[in-house]
Every structure is written in structure tokens, then in C-alpha cells.
């Protein structure tokens, strides 16, 4: 059974990098770069994991996460948040909104992949 991930990100180069890493690790990657309808896209895709940027056009990642957690069945869906704004209060906000893992850009590829595998393993055990 293939593992599916939805990547919400607006920087084309970053999308390409993450897509390359995840595909190599056996993930099926769906990307979307607009924040406004991101919740609908995630809901429809019903993935095993979501990688979410914060600074997005239309709707920011924090709000997307909050809305996502309201939806039945998505309360515990692993969400890895990647943001270029790595301040302490951003991390706090993200945790409040129900983030599973919070990482700041730039990241090391290995760290991201470790986090993805870790989150997936936790979710699979439950």
C-alpha cells in the first residue's frame, strides 16, 4: 500500500526538492500551492501525511491546520509544518493549532525524511 502525502507549498524550487526526496522514499506526492482551498484539497486526498508551509497566498498554514483539525477523521492526521519564520511564538502557535512536527527552513534533507518516517510510524502504530 503506497503512502500518500499532500504538500502545501508555494515556492516551486522547494516543491521540487521535497517531491524528489519523498518520491525517492516511496511516497506518492500530491502538491498544492494555494492556501485558500488547501483544506478541501487535503480532505479530498485524505493522505497519510501533510507537509504544510506557513506563508501561503490566500490562507496561511496556521489557519489551514486549525480548520483541518476541526474536521472529523483529521484530528490526528500527521502534519509536518515547514516554515521560514522560525520564531518561538510561531512554534507555540503551531503547537496550539495541533501541529505534529514543526521544522524551520532551511532544513536538512535527512532531518525532514526522519521526521516524515517517524510521524508515519507513530500514526501506523495507533
Amino acid at each position, binding site marked *: 500500500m503506497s503512502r500518500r502525502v499532500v504538500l502545501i507549498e508555494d515556492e516551486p*524550487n*522547494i516543491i521540487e*526538492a521535497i517531491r524528489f526526496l519523498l518520491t525517492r522514499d516511496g511516497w506518492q506526492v500530491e502538491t498544492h500551492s494555494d492556501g485558500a482551498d488547501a483544506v478541501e484539497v487535503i480532505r479530498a486526498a485524505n493522505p497519510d501525511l501533510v507537509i504544510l508551509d506557513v506563508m501561503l497566498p490566500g490562507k496561511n498554514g496556521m489557519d489551514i491546520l486549525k480548520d483541518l483539525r476541526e474536521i472529523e477523521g483529521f484530528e490526528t492526521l500527521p502534519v509536518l509544518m515547514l516554515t*521560514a519564520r522560525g*520564531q518561538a511564538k510561531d512554534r507555540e502557535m503551531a503547537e496550539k493549532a495541533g501541529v505534529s512536527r514543526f521544522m524551520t527552513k532551511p*532544513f536538512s534533507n535527512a532531518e525532514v525524511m526522519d521526521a516524515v518516517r517517524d510521524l508515519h510510524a507513530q500514526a501506523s502504530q495507533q
Partner: protein
Amino acid sequence: MASLNLLILVCLGYVVLLFLVAFAADRFAAQGAGARWLRSPLVYTLSLSIYCTAWTFYGAVGYAARSGLEFVTIYLGPSLVMMAWWWGLRKLVRVGRSQRVTSIADLISSRYGKSNLLAIGVTVLAVIGVTPYIALQLQSITLSFSIFAEADPNGTYSAERSVFWVAAGLAVFAILFGTRNLDANERHHGVVTAVALEAVVKLVALVAVGIFVVWGLAGGIGATLDRIDASKIGQWQVESGRWATITFLSAAAFLCLPRMFQVMVVENVDERHLRIASWAFPLYLLIMSLFVVPIAAVGLDIMPEGANPDLFVLTVPLSQGQETLAMLSFLGGFSSATSMVIVAAMALSTMVSNHIVMPIWLNSREGGASVSGDVRNVVLMARRISIAVVMAFGYFYYTLSGGGAALAAIGLVSFGGIAQILPAMLGGLFWRGATRTGALAGLTVGFGLWVYTMLLPNLGGGVMPQIWLTEGPLGIGWLRPTALFGIEGLDPTVHAVLWSMGLNTLFFCAASLVSFPSPLERLQGAQFVNVFEHSAGPRGWTGSVAQSEDLMIMSQRILGGEEARALFLREARRQGARGHLPDPTPGFLERLERELSGSVGAAAAHAMIGQIVGGSSVSVEDLWAVADETAQMLEYSNQLEAKSDELSRTAKKLRDANEKLTHISLQKDAFLSQVSHELRTPMTSIRAFSEILRDTDGLADEDKTRYAAIIHGEAQRLTRLLDDLLDLSVLESGQVSLNTGAGNLGDVLDHSVSTALAGWDTPLQVQRRRTDEDVPLETDLDRLAQVFINLIANAQKYCDAERPGLQIVVQQTPDFLHVDFVDNGSGIPEDAQQMVFEKFARVSTEKAGGAGLGLAICREIMQRLGGDVSYLRGRGGGAFRVSLPAALSLAAQ
């Protein structure tokens, strides 16, 4: 021969004329019309001539006929005072005005602590002293009547009866003139004007007679001088003791006579008039005295033996058949007598009613007067009765003295009595140590001695037993009235003046030294002696402005300088006054009182204003002291208030600064956060792909190349971002140095277009009108190009038209050079049009090449160049306008 009836008719006509003049002057004064003329120094000087009474008009000639040149002393005294003591008179006038003195009794009383006893004393002294003088006028008029009566064959003339009617007539005249109305300042413009007219009549009459005598009778100046030498006038020896004494007496009388005080001080409207009067009045006296000796000499020569020399002025022309001249001369004498009587009676009645009748009447009524109209009527009635009483005194004196004494002798008696006021007056003006006790002592002693040594001996007719004069009372030789303490051989007048004035002065000084003044006396003493330090200069001598100044000074002490000045200035503007002092109108006083009561309480404010405007018994100085204390307390509390104000101001400043800092800090945080985000984003790609390249084996070559290209692009993006940040930082800090040079707009645009579009596969179509672009520029051309490049590049990046195009339009207005960049895309949404110039503002994420700093930099640059860049609405596509001030472009033309 003129009939007596005609004479009476002429007199009545003259009186009616005077009435009309007085009435007109009052009317003018009330309307304010002709005020300049009424208040001229000429009228003032002429009014001073009431010093020249019938005594001087008739009596001087008689005096000269009897005693030679001694008559000159009567003119000498006042002339000396006017010329040599001008400054002293100014002080007297200033004090009188600033203290609102109504009479000489009021002056003395006011100086010595508002003592009513002194006021009564001076009033009594003045009435008794002036009574012989009034009798003198009665006598002169009666005598002059009798001259005409004797010449009237049909006349049934009785001297006894005529003197009564003359007295009654003068009383009625004075009552009608002087008490027609009540004036708060005791000023009578009408009377003063009438008196001035009479002064002219006197002068003209005497000069006319003189000219007639010198050129008509004696036959010229030389012949006149011969006659004078021939007459006994030329042989009279000048007796220095009498000269000095009588000069002194006339000078003293000039200052102290109630009628002189009335015209000189009370009726004075402008202190500066004194300066002109100081030479004009002596000149008047000089002209008056010019023909006295010739008339006397010629009269003695041509008139029969035993003719009264007092009447030469009348009898000489009559004897020559010059009836008209005699009539004019009669009118001159009549003028002299009437003017003196009117003013003297007025002045005396003011004193009598203010200091004797009114206090008695007020005391007799429980609770004092309640209705002001009531008081007014009582005052007027008191004045009228006083005039009648004064005239009655004069009449009785005349009948008592038998009418026999020479005019000059009576005049001197009067002068001697009035002169007793002098020590108290001068002492009060110049010596702060003078006290009420001293004044009372001096006046009493001087008055007593005058009565004993001068008045009683001169009354004759058995008033004083003859034996007193020869043997002394009760046979005590050293008490003889004309040889006190055994000093014999002196002229009776010199003797009397020496003793009365000497002991008066001595007692005044001694008693002043041993007694202590009351606080009120002390304050008034300071006010009098230092009057020039306290009162306004001549400029402020209309009473109202002087009051305003006092009010201002007081208000400054209470309200503080600036506030008081502002208050007065506001009021002055409201009244339309030209200066910075308003008139003390009732409305203004009420407002000022309210203002002051806020500081010192209602009662104190009322008292203070009442003092300055109304004149209560507390001196201005006294109140100033109170005000000073209040002001000190106020200042202290003001200082505290100021400190607390300052503290709260500082606190507010700190608050503001803090807010500003907080705001700046927030902006900085947001900016740093933005910068951090903008830096991290390309770095993320660089790191990710470089790790991929490092860690991934067997990557296809084309992938390797592509990933390396991404890394390269992102690195360039980073560099651009850092460049932009530095550029913006320099521009914002204002440290940028402009590299101004001359160039042409077209060239700058050429360079900008080629630079901006270089490297694009499908550059947009740029549309230009070269003819419009031939504009010389004088500015930083590189910076301007940077702006152009940015705008063109933006159009290239963001224009979403199928076939992107850009139109560059150049327009010149008188003030600006506009360069518009309009593309054919969909433009910027309205809500984002202003935002685009903010830092890190990006409308769309797609094709984002920069960090969103471009337009912010453009705006900064254009503002440095003195112009601006703005978004143009409604131009179809995205449209930006770059504006340069015309000066920068035209300067090079």
C-alpha cells in the same frame, strides 16, 4: 453822562453773556465737542487770572498812588511761583489729580490721614480769610457804582442799599453759576470758560485806559515818564522788608487761596498746561501792571486833591468825558470782582458743604443716606446755602469795617490769613515726616496769631479795644498785637507775617517731629511726597487712563503680568481703544472684579477696585502691599503647579517616546521577520538541492545540471535581496549621496529599457514618443534609471496580457515632468494599489523574482530626487507615474 439805569442794564447784559458762554461751554464739554479748545492751555492760563481781582484792577493804581512801586510785589509773588517753582506746582497738580482732591481743605485733610478736623480747620480759616476779600469786591463794585451814581443827576443812590443788592446779586450769580449741577470731579467747564472771558475783558479794559492815559492825556511815553518823575510815586523809597514780606505773602496766597486752588489744581485738565502757564501767566500779569504807574501818576496830576486813587481807572476817563472807555473800564472791574466772587464762593461752598454741612447732616440721619438723589439735593442745597453764608460774611465784614479801609490793605489781611495754610501744604508735599498733629498745631498757632495781629487790628470800628493796640491787653505790653514780645518798630504787616508764619512753621515742624503718624497718614504721606513715582506721567493725565494704569498695575500683581496684560489688551480691543489700556467702563470693571475675585476673594477685589476707581479711605499703596502678599502666595502655588505640569509633560514625552520606540520595535521585528523569511526561502532550495547533489548517487546528468542551475538562481536571488536591503537601508537613513549630472530623458529611457528587457525571451513591446522625450535633465541619472528599470522590469514580470506591451508617456507641466509607464495587463487590484509601495509587498506569488522591495526603493529614490512615484488608476493596465520637479529638468534648458 451815562445814567445809572444804563449801567445796570449793561451789567445785566454782561452777566447774561457770561451765562451764555458758561452754558455753551458746559454743553460742549458734555458732548465732548470743542473739547480741545475748552481744555487748551490758553483757557487754563486765563482762568488763573482770577488772581487779579477788583483789588488789582482798581487797587493797584491806588496802591501805586499811595505807596509807589510796592504794588509790583502783588504781581511779583505769583510770577516767581509760576516761573521759578514750576516743578513744585506740577507736583501739587499731580497730587491733587491723583488723589481726586476737590479743594485745598480736602488736600490738607487727605494728606494728613483724611482728618476731618483739619478739613474743618482749613475751611474755617479759608472762610474767615476770604471774607475780607469778598468784602473788598463788594466795596469795589459799590464804589464804582457810586462814581456813576454821583454823576447821574436823577439818581437817588444809596451806598448802603447798593452794597446789599450787589452782595445779593453776586450770591445769586454764584449760585446759578457754580451749583447748577454736581460734577464728580468738581470741574466746571462753563465757569472756567466764563472766567477766561472775563480775564480778557479785564486786560482789554485796563490796557485801553492805559493807552488813553499815556497817549491821550500825557502825550506819549516820554511825557508820561516825566509826569511819573514829577509825581510823588517817583519819590517813594523801596522798603526791603515790606517788599520781601508782601512778595512772599502774594506768592503764598497764590498757592493757598481756595479760588486759586480751584482753577489751578481742581479745574486743571492737563498737567502740561502748567508749562505754558508758567510764562503766559506772568506775561498776563506784566501787561496788567504795565499801565498802573502811568495811570496813577496822571491821575494824581489831573484829578482834584482828595480823589480816591483806587478809582482812578474809572474817574480819569470820566473826567475827560470818555464815557465809553469808562464803561469798558467799569466792565473790567466788574469782571474782576464777579469772577473772583463766583470762583471763591464756589470753592468755599464746596469746602463748607463737604467738610462741615455734609458730615453734620449725615450724622444726624440714622443709618446714613439711602437714596442718592436725596443726597444730591442736600449737597446742592448745602452749597447754595454756603454761598449765601459766605456772601453774607463778606457783606457784614464790609459794613463792620465801615468800607473805609484802602483796597490793598484789606487784600493783604486776606493774604496773611490764607498764607497760614502754606506750611502744612508744602510740608505735606515734600516732607514725609509731617504729621496731622504738626499741621493742626501750626495752623492753630498761625491762625490765632493772624487773627490777633492782623485781622482784628484791621477791622477797626471797636472790634478790638484801642487800648490793646497801644498798651496791650490787660496792660501787658509784650502782648500788643503790633509789637509782640516787645519787638517794636516793624511795619505792622511785616510784624504780623513774621510772627504768624514763623511760629506756624515752627510749631508745625516741632509737633510733627514729636508726634507719630497713623498708618493711613504714613501711606498718604508717601503717596503725596512720592507722587511722581506712583502716578502716571503727563500722558496719562486724563483721569480715566490713569485709573486704567492703576488697575493694570494692581491686576498684574494679582493675576500675573502676562495674564493681566492679555486681559486688558482683550478689553481694549473690544472697546476699540487704540492703546493697550481700555477705558474703565462699568462693564469692564465688573469683569475685572470677577477676574480678581477669583484670586483674592470677592470682598478684597471689590475693595481694590473701589479704591482705585471710587476712592475709599485705604490708600492704593496699602492695597498693593496686600496684593503683593497674595501674589507671592500665588506665585508659589503657580511654581508648584508649573513643576507638576512639567512633570506630567515629561511623563507624556516619555510615554510618546516609548510608544514610538515600541512601534519602531514592532516594525523592526516585522521587518526582520520578513527579511528572515525572504532569506530562508532561497536558502532552503539551495540547501535541499546541494544535499541532493551530494547524497544522491547516479543522478542523471541533466538533473544534476538543472539542480545546479536552481542553486545558482537562488544564490543570485539571495544576492539581489541583500543588494536591495542595503540599498533601501542607505536610502532610508538619508545617507545616500546623490550623484547629480546633466543628461537627456530620452537617453536615460533608452538605457533603462535595454537593461530591463535584457535576458527575456519574449520582451514586451515598448511604445515611446521620442519627440516628447527630448528633455534635458539635471539630477542623479543612475538613480533615475534604477527607478525606470524597476518599473519596466515589473511590467515585464507581471503584465498578464497575451501580447504584453508597455507605453511610456512623457508630459511636462509648469511644475513637474511626468513619465508614465502604462502596460496593457490587468493592472493591480484596487485594494493593493497603495500597498505595492510597502516593503516586501507582492501582489502575486507567481513569477516572483524579487523580495518585494523594488517599488519601496523606487519611492525612496524619487523622494530623494524631490519627486515621487505613484500608481495611476483607470489607465487600463498597470500604470506608474514618475514625477520629477520641473526645476530639475528645466534647469538644464
